């Protein structure tokens, strides 16, 4: 459903991503792993239009979306959960979620209520906190708001940037259980993750980035036992 060809991008005059090819299939989860500065976040931010694409192409569900800007990509069904969550802190939880439906042209009062109900069913904790100012929530709850907000747009592809960052493993597993239910409905997922084990255990395939290039790529379970990956990222030699 997502096909990236020869993507090149960077920040300022610095090229950080040098020609990446990557595919995500419907209902599948793909991980992008690699060291700090390998270009993972730049890559993800370029796909969702937050950073300018220098060259290459992005196709989503057969449509060329290379030149779309961030808010237009949200409208074609790509939701990005940004690094550091970026929830609207001064607004309450429910308003944050409602804003997630902004990208939907066909939204009505009824469809928004129905989607809210679904998010509250997926994250019961958010229902309890619906009128609370989001900035006062714990990190894990804020991540639930960020994921819930992304899901309110009824995306067909979800981009997640460092979803485990700063979270207790238990909270992350709770959030991932929800993501698996979403995937079962055919939603694709592209996850950038520093926690390599977590990423490989929860995805079908993975790409290992090294200095802005794909160094390795294959089924996640194979990479888990791959000697290079073990040594470099799983602390196999320590």
């Amino acid at each position: 459903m997502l096909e990236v060809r020869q993507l090149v991008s960077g920040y300022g005059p610095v090229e950080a991503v040098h020609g990446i090819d990557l595919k995500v299939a419907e209902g599948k989860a793909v991980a992008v792993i690699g060291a700090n500065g390998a270009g993972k976040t730049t890559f993800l931010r370029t796909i969702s239009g937050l950073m300018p694409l220098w060259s290459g192409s992005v196709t989503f569900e057969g449509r060329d979306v290379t030149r779309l800007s961030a808010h237009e990509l949200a409208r074609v069904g790509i939701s990005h959960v940004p690094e550091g969550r970026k929830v609207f802190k001064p607004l309450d939880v429910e308003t944050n979620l409602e804003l997630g439906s902004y990208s939907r042209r066909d939204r009505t009062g009824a469809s928004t209520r129905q989607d809210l109900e679904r998010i509250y069913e997926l994250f019961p904790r958010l229902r309890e906190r619906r009128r609370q100012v989001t900035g006062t929530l714990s990190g894990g709850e804020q991540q639930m708001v960020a994921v819930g907000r992304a899901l309110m747009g009824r995306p067909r592809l979800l981009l997640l940037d460092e979803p485990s960052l700063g979270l207790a493993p238990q909270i992350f597993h709770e959030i991932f259980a929800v993501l698996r239910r979403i995937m079962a409905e055919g939603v694709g997922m592209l996850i950038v993750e520093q926690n390599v084990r977590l990423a490989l255990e929860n995805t079908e395939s993975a790409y290992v980035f090294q200095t802005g290039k794909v160094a390795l790529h294959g089924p996640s379970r194979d990479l888990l036992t791959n000697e290079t990956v073990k040594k470099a990222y799983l602390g196999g030699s320590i």
Partner: protein
Amino acid sequence: MSDFLQLLVGAVTLGAIYALIALGFNLIFAASRLMNFAQGDLAMLGAMVGVTLAGTLHLPFSLVVLAAVVVVGLLFLAFNLGVLRPLAKRNATLTSMVMATLALSMFLQGAAELIWGRLEQAVPSPVGSTPLLVGGIVIVPHYLVVVGTSAVAFLAMFFFFRRTLTGKALLATGFEPEAARLVGINPVSMVALTCFLGGGFAALGGLIIGPITFAAPWMGLSLAVKGFAASMLGGLGSLPGALLGGLIVGLLETFGAGYVSSAYSDAIIFLALMLILFVRPAGLLGSPLVTGEHF
């Protein structure tokens, strides 16, 4: 006691106008974090539109209000598209964009002098000038127009921010511009919307203060300074803050002039501003969550 009540009537009227100017100021700030220093001169233009349309052409006041709001709103929207946007595309800092609004302020004042001359001119009030006597207090009928207009403007904006998704999206754009784009909000159109509304509310303030103070090309500076003080006092970017701040500035100015000296009334306003900011840096109703991250 009746002196006090008499001053209070004037204070609330003046406060309602400062609140309108602060409202436009805060709207623009809420979406873009830009401080628009041309706010006072946009208000002046509103008054000047009143001079021409109501004074010279004798058009009905409702039409004059509509024309002032639309013309000045569109003017500032054009400034946004023609100057601020190109600056942003060249990666200009927010500070240089603020300087551009200062340049606009000077330009508007000069242009107004060329078109309308330097002299003070009258803006006719839509209501009669026979004062109403209520319990020994004199109320100029136009004061009711001022307070009513401001109340309607604030009620409309409260509804917009509390009840509509577009209003909430506008706030979200200010809080987290990137996350706002990721949920499908186009920040460019949000900022354009606030530029139109901000210019329109400034024009409304200028148009309705006209019958009280007269209109002149140099009236913008004092309005900008008071509106800015109201905005800071209440909390930059806050809607109830604009209302509260406007009323406080109106009270300080009127009672300062009434009980101390009109020569010191501006000094009293800014002394109070400093004291309040010392205790509450984000203003009385400003949220530290909003301002803290941006300074």
